[in-house]
């Protein structure tokens, strides 16, 4: 009799906790990053970010050691490959510097904002998501440093992701590789626009709005200026593609940033993201539906 009562209580508590969890998740999804969930997250981040910073500082040598040991076998091949790559890039740099100088001159003449001139805040990544399913990073800067939801996060290579939650001294970055992440892009080779989505893996999915113009392998995709500042490199097309039955053109893209090598990032605070300008309700619509081509760079 006693054991039956005990079993019953346990089961009732179990069902109750599962129900509470389910309700929490429902309200959190419906609140779209606001409400009680947001307050709890802010509190938890305020409390745990300093601890995570300290833990990250302590564990960094361990991570470096493990990384070094695991890569030991491939180091020689990697070295040779990199030496060849450096020679190739040195030649490209010389060509690019001249082209870049001309672009900056033209942008200045036309009154366009130059990305490198936009104010940015540098932040350190202090933690990642608890599991490999969550393509997020946590940084040590927040609203106190001028960061708001929706701002673009970049590194020296290009677009890393966007701020999707922010507290006073910390923020969460949704990486471009996350399946919930999407960004409007422009193919520099054709000037056509499209939509890039994360897939949780090392590659992204590209769908072009204009299916008539094929994309070629190696085409560089940059932000189209609808959500983020225009011209930020996003990725390169991995395989050429032409339209399927005349109305769909999709292929895979390799992101320009090395997600596994992220340590420091920059948050562009000098650009009004759509999220901050219009409020949260419209942001979710923007997230689901690819935005129309704004033509900012034209």
């Amino acid at each position, binding site marked *: 009799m006693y054991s039956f009562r005990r079993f019953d209580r346990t089961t009732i508590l179990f069902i109750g906790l599962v129900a509470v*969890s389910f309700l929490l998740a429902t309200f959190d999804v419906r609140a779209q990053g606001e409400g009680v969930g947001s307050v709890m997250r802010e509190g938890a981040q305020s409390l745990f970010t300093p601890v*995570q910073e300290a833990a990250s500082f302590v564990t960094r040598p361990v991570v470096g050691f493990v990384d070094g040991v695991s890569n030991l076998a491939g180091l020689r091949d990697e070295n040779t490959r990199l030496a060849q790559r450096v020679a190739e890039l040195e030649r490209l740099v010389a060509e690019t510097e001249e082209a870049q100088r001309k672009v900056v001159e033209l942008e200045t003449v036309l009154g366009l904002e130059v990305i490198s001139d936009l104010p940015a805040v540098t932040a350190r990544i202090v*933690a990642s*998501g*608890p599991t*490999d399913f969550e393509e997020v990073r946590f940084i040590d800067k927040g609203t106190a440093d001028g960061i708001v939801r929706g701002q673009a996060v970049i590194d020296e290579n290009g677009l890393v992701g966007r701020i999707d939650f922010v507290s006073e001294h910390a923020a969460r970055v949704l990486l471009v590789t996350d399946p919930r992440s999407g960004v409007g892009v422009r193919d520099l080779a054709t000037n056509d626009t499209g939509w890039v989505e994360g897939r949780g893996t090392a590659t992204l999915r590209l769908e072009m709005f204009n299916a008539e113009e094929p994309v070629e392998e190696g085409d560089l995709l940059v932000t189209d200026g609808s959500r983020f500042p225009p011209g930020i490199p996003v990725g390169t097309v991995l395989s050429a593609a032409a339209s399927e039955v005349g109305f769909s053109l999709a292929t895979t893209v390799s992101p320009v940033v090395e997600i596994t090598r992220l340590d420091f990032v920059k948050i562009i605070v000098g650009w009004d993201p759509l999220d901050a300008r219009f409020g949260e309700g419209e942001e979710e619509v923007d997230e689901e539906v690819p935005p129309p081509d704004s033509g900012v760079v034209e």
Partner: protein
Amino acid sequence: MRSRAVAVALAMVVVAVILQTTLFGEGRIQPFGASPNLVVVVVIATVRHLDTEAGLLVGFTGGLLMDLLGGSPLGLWAMVMTVVAYLTLRLRHRADDGVLSVAIGVFALTFLAHSLFVLAGTLFGQRLLTDLDVVRLMLLPSLYNMLLAAVVLPLATRLMGARRVDSWAA
């Protein structure tokens, strides 16, 4: 004695979540592109020494902390960890003592936890099933957790002052 065990369990879960977010994952320790789920192992290791009610609450708290410090909707991991805690509490009286039983139990519970997270996450719009590596991200952490269990389970037993160090049942 009981309150001490609960306090130790909660402390271990908090440390596990902090280590999980700073030591494992992309750019950190992630052999073959997947990381162990330390929090699942710690919940299994601690809950098996607790009363049923306390065990369920420890599992729920650990999951909630993962939600708060992660990118998923609040409550998803809390639900998953509550299920893990519940099954651990049920299985501890039935599983045979021995390394193999413990290893299979940890593997199965980790795999179940990740499967449940993917299903519940998809239900709440997380698009986790679109992840091309989803099967690998469920299998490899389960294998890694089997190895971690060899360290974490005896450690939890020792810290919590439980009677037996190397058995599944407390």
